[in-house]
Each structure stands twice: as structure tokens, then as C-alpha cells.
């Protein structure tokens, strides 16, 4: 069995049948990481206990004890989710040596399903970025061409998945941070409906936008991961009590009669011709598969980027107030603690610990929430957000899902956009509205650019309708021209 190509089911069945051990699976990927990670910098920490934990699973199987559906499946976790005993940094100097005393719920559920955790994956600092260039632990590189970005903020997750340095990875998405890197790296990424996956133990960036989700090499593996991590969690009161459907069992590529909407306001002259070509081909293939394509209008999506940044930065300025050097994280060095003013203690520690983009967003958020500006910026954005959500709800009465590009262009070169914050923010034009409305969204690899870089297409569903977009993704997966190709780093 070629573990770089095997599905979750193939591996978990083989592990349960003792044809291969969880330890062998873990060792295979740990060896691959050792060999290839230096070129990519996808992993920033390896789980030194991975083999020990895999052995515990193998011992359970030997004793014929129950193990979960992801038995032996090796995962990489974005370094934004807390992993008990395993350093969790959020890609930041300010958490450089933080070792969580608990697992994030999503991580605990994966472990309960039998998965092995290989290590922690690189990301833009505090999930703020679209290129994985702001990490304190160095840039991550795109496995298809290491001069290019893997996307962000879940750049390490997408890069590791594309290079098969894990069987599956977990990322998070606040404004596109699963979907965009998944598209740039040619892998499947899904951001579930807000409330499906617990945010407990996930380093908070923007609490009303953050969601964790899988980045995998196939739609069925993404579906299996969702089944494992979704579901109400009493530790996160924003989680939904809706029962998690058996996404993988109900998966089908039969989409005859489904109505798929194309958003009129997303048509623009800036879209790269290769992205347009891939998107047009996807429309044709969906029609061949029996879906009906209709044009829809969601006028407020044009304001999604400003709304997103005003809301996300405001929430972030509040969430990141906890990093004060008191109980954990970076503390500035002072010769004499007893003579320091508390305000200086905080400012120095935070000033030294946070990177430029994080500071920029904290300040943007602080400004938007400050007296005299709260109504014009934060409150206004929240009002428009309600209107946007209503527009989406109305559109989903006319269609089952929406199709759009994921990004304006394929992956860009490292350093190309990092000098201009606004230019970087405008990368998120097609993805941010989904988070604002709390909808599920997916990126499916579908084509390649003329330079050999992957291009995905994006599906957006109504609230809790992940099954519909997974099914459409299944149909797209079968027709994908990107299928079977592997990145250069192999």
C-alpha cells in the first residue's frame, strides 16, 4: 500500500485488520517529514510522542478493543489548536514556549477517533495573513514551486497535505484561511458552518468568524474528518446542537437536478485568465453532471473585505488582550520587576512578542472600537453583516449551492505582496463573505495554471448544508484535470 496515495478508509481498515500497524504508518510519515520538511518549512514542531501514542492504539487492536473510524490515520494540526503537552505557538514569538495543559476539543475528538498526531503546522502569526509569510518560525513554501507561497493562514497545513507529509491536516478559516491555501496547494479544504466545530482550545483570532476544518487529498477523507470533529461541545457555547450527519456515508457524485448559482458580483476584470479558465470548465462539467446553472445576485458581497477586516480586527484586538506576559507567553526582561510600571510591563512584553501584521490589526481593531469611531466602523460593519446574511438566506431559496473562484489568481511569489497590507487584504475578495454569513465553504482542486500551480474552485452552501457541497465536490473531483498530479517536491 502506497501510504502517499492511500485513503483514510484503506489505512484504518488495514490497521484494524493488523495488516499494517499505526506505528508503521506514523513512522512512514515522520521519515517523509524529516526528508522533505526542510524544503517547505510546513511543520514547526514534531510530536515526539507520536510513535508511543500510535503503539497504544496498536496494543488496543491486539486486545480486540474498540478503536475509532480513523484508527492509525496520521494527522498534522495547524499550530493554532492546543495540543496537550505539545508546544503550541500560533506562529508567534509571544507563545514561543507555550505548552498547553489541554487538548482543543477538535484535537481530542480526532485522537478519540484513533488518529495519530504527527506534529504542528506552520501558519501566519495568529492566523492573520494569506500567505504564511508572517510566521515567527519562517515562511512556508508551496510544494508545487518553492518560490511561491502556499497561501494562508493555514499554509503549513495545505503544504503538508499537498506534499503528503500527513494523511490529513486540520486548518482554521476566519476569512478564507482553509480554502485559499487549499486552492494554492491543490488539495481539498472545507470550512464548516459556524458552530459545527468547537472553538474550545483554538487560539482565538475573531470569535464570530473562526472555524476549524479539514484539509485533505480527497472529498471523502474531508467528510470523514468532519464526522469526527463536528458536534456540540459544552465548552463552546457557540456550537450547534444539530446532529452531525454521516457525511461520508451519504456522499454521492449524483447531482442531477441540483441548482448551482453563479454570483454576478464576483465577475471582475482582475481575475487571472487561468483561474477564469478553470472556473469556466467547472461550470461545464457541473452542467454535464446534470446540475442547473443559474445566475444570482448578492449585492453586499462587494463590501465583504471591508466588513471582514473591520470586524475581525476589532474582535482580534479584544482576543489578543490576554497576551500580557503574566501567566504564560513572552515576558520582556526587566532588571528590577518591583520598579516597573504595569503599563510598561504589558507594552514591552506585547511590543516585543507580536509581529508587525498582528500589531497592525490590533491597532486597526482598537481604533475601530474606540470612542468616536465605534458606530462608524465596528457597529456599521455588524449592521451590514446582518443584511449580507439575509441576502444569502434568500439566495439559498433559489439554489442549492454557489460556485465561484477561490482567489483572483493562482499562488503568488514569496515577497510579491507582503509590502502592501491593503493589496494582501484584497486577496480575500471571494472568501470572506462566507465567514461573515457563517456559511459552509469548500475549495476543490480543479485545474492548473500555465506555470504549473494548482487552481481550485469554491463551493458555498446554506447553513448546515455541508452534504450538498460535499456531493457537488465529489462530482467535480471526478472531472478534475488536476487529479493524479503531484507537486515537484516529491
Amino acid at each position, binding site marked *: 500500500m502506497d501510504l502517499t496515495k492511500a485513503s483514510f478508509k484503506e489505512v484504518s481498515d488495514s490497521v484494524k485488520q493488523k495488516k499494517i500497524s499505526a506505528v508503521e504508518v506514523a513512522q512512514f510519515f515522520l521519515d517523509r517529514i524529516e526528508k522533505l520538511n526542510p524544503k517547505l518549512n510546513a511543520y514547526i514542531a514534531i510530536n515526539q510522542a507520536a510513535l508511543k501514542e500510535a503503539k497504544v492504539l496498536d496494543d488496543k487492536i491486539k486486545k480486540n478493543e474498540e478503536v475509532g473510524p480513523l484508527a492509525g490515520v496520521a494527522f498534522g494540526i495547524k499550530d493554532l489548536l492546543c495540543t496537550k503537552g505539545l508546544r503550541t505557538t500560533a506562529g508567534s514569538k509571544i507563545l514561543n514556549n507555550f505548552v498547553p*495543559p489541554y487538548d482543543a476539543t477538535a484535537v481530542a475528538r480526532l485522537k478519540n477517533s484513533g488518529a495519530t498526531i504527527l506534529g504542528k503546522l506552520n501558519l501566519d502569526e495568529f492566523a492573520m495573513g494569506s500567505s504564511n509569510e508572517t510566521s515567527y518560525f519562517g515562511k512556508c513554501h508551496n510544494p508545487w514551486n518553492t518560490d511561491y507561497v502556499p497561501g494562508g493562514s493555514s499554509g503549513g497545513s495545505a503544504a503538508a497535505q499537498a506534499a503528503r507529509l500527513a494523511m490529513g491536516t486540520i486548518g482554521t478559516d476566519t476569512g478564507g484561511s482553509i480554502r485559499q491555501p487549499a486552492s494554492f496547494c491543490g488539495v481539498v479544504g472545507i470550512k464548516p458552518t459556524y458552530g459545527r466545530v468547537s472553538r474550545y482550545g483554538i487560539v482565538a483570532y475573531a470569535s464570530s468568524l473562526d472555524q476549524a476544518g479539514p484539509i485533505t487529498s480527497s472529498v471523502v477523507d474531508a467528510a470523514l474528518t468532519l464526522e469526527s470533529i463536528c458536534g456540540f461541545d459544552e465548552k463552546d457555547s457557540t456550537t450547534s446542537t444539530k446532529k452531525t450527519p454521516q457525511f461520508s456515508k451519504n456522499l454521492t457524485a449524483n447531482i442531477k437536478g441540483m441548482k448551482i448559482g453563479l454570483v454576478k458580483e464576483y465577475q471582475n476584470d482582475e481575475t487571472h485568465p487561468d483561474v477564469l479558465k478553470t472556473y469556466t470548465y467547472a461550470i461545464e462539467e457541473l452542467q454535464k453532471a446534470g446540475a442547473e446553472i443559474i445566475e444570482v445576485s448578492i449585492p453586499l458581497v462587494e*463590501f465583504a473585505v471591508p466588513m471582514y477586516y473591520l470586524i475581525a480586527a476589532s474582535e482580534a484586538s479584544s482576543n489578543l488582550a490576554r497576551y500580557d506576559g503574566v501567566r504564560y*507567553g513572552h515576558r520582556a526582561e526587566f532588571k528590577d520587576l518591583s520598579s516597573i510600571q*504595569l503599563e*510598561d510591563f504589558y507594552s514591552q512584553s506585547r511590543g516585543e512578542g507580536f509581529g508587525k501584521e498582528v500589531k*497592525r490589526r490590533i*491597532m486597526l481593531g482598537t481604533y475601530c472600537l474606540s470612542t468616536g469611531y465605534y458606530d462608524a466602523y465596528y457597529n456599521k460593519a*455588524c449592521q*451590514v453583516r446582518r443584511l449580507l446574511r439575509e441576502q444569502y438566506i434568500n439566495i439559498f431559496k433559489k439554489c442549492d449551492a454557489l460556485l465561484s473562484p477561490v482567489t483572483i489568481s493562482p499562488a503568488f511569489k514569496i515577497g510579491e505582496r507582503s509590502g502592501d497590507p491593503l493589496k494582501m487584504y484584497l486577496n480575500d475578495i471571494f472568501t470572506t463573505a462566507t465567514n461573515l454569513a457563517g456559511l459552509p465553504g469548500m475549495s476543490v482542486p480543479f485545474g492548473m495554471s500555465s506555470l504549473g500551480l494548482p487552481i481550485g474552485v469554491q463551493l458555498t452552501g446554506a447553513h448546515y448544508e455541508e452534504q450538498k457541497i460535499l456531493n457537488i465536490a465529489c462530482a467535480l473531483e471526478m472531472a478534475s484535470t488536476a487529479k493524479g498530479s503531484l507537486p515537484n517536491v516529491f
Partner: protein
Amino acid sequence: MIDQKTIEHIAKLARLSITSEEAIEYGEQLTKVLNHFQQISKIETTGIEPLVTPAEIEFYARADEARHETTTDEMLMNAPDKAGNLFKVPPVV
């Protein structure tokens, strides 16, 4: 235009130490960003309730019972400076 003085005030509110060069740089960048974002002021929102969370969530509260899920040692594990069972900090008063 968000000037250096405003940035320094915001940095103080946010408890972030920044250099005066950084203050100028951030001022220029935030001005550019907010000028672009002004466009949302065009949208009619009179009487619209702000949306703070995008999901319809039922209010949930667990029973008010103490739970012991983490030990004191675990909570002190990451302390930059401690004394016994306490986090050591500068004087607050």
C-alpha cells in the same frame, strides 16, 4: 489621515510599545486601509440590529458545579516567573 499622535494614542490603548518610525508607518498604512473601507458608510442600515454572531445559537449554560480538570502545577507550567503557587508580577498598587 491617521497621524503619528493618533497612532501613539491607539498603541497606548492597546498596550503595544512601538517606535516613532513604526507609528508613522502604521499611520500611513491604516489611513490607506480605512480610506478604502469607508465605502461601507454608503450602505443604508437605519434600524438594523447589528449581527454579532452568524449562527442561531440556543442559550446553553452548564450546571454551576466545580470541576477539577487541570491541576495547579499544570496551570503554573508556563509561568514566566512564579513564587510558590503564585504568578510573580510587578507591583499593581
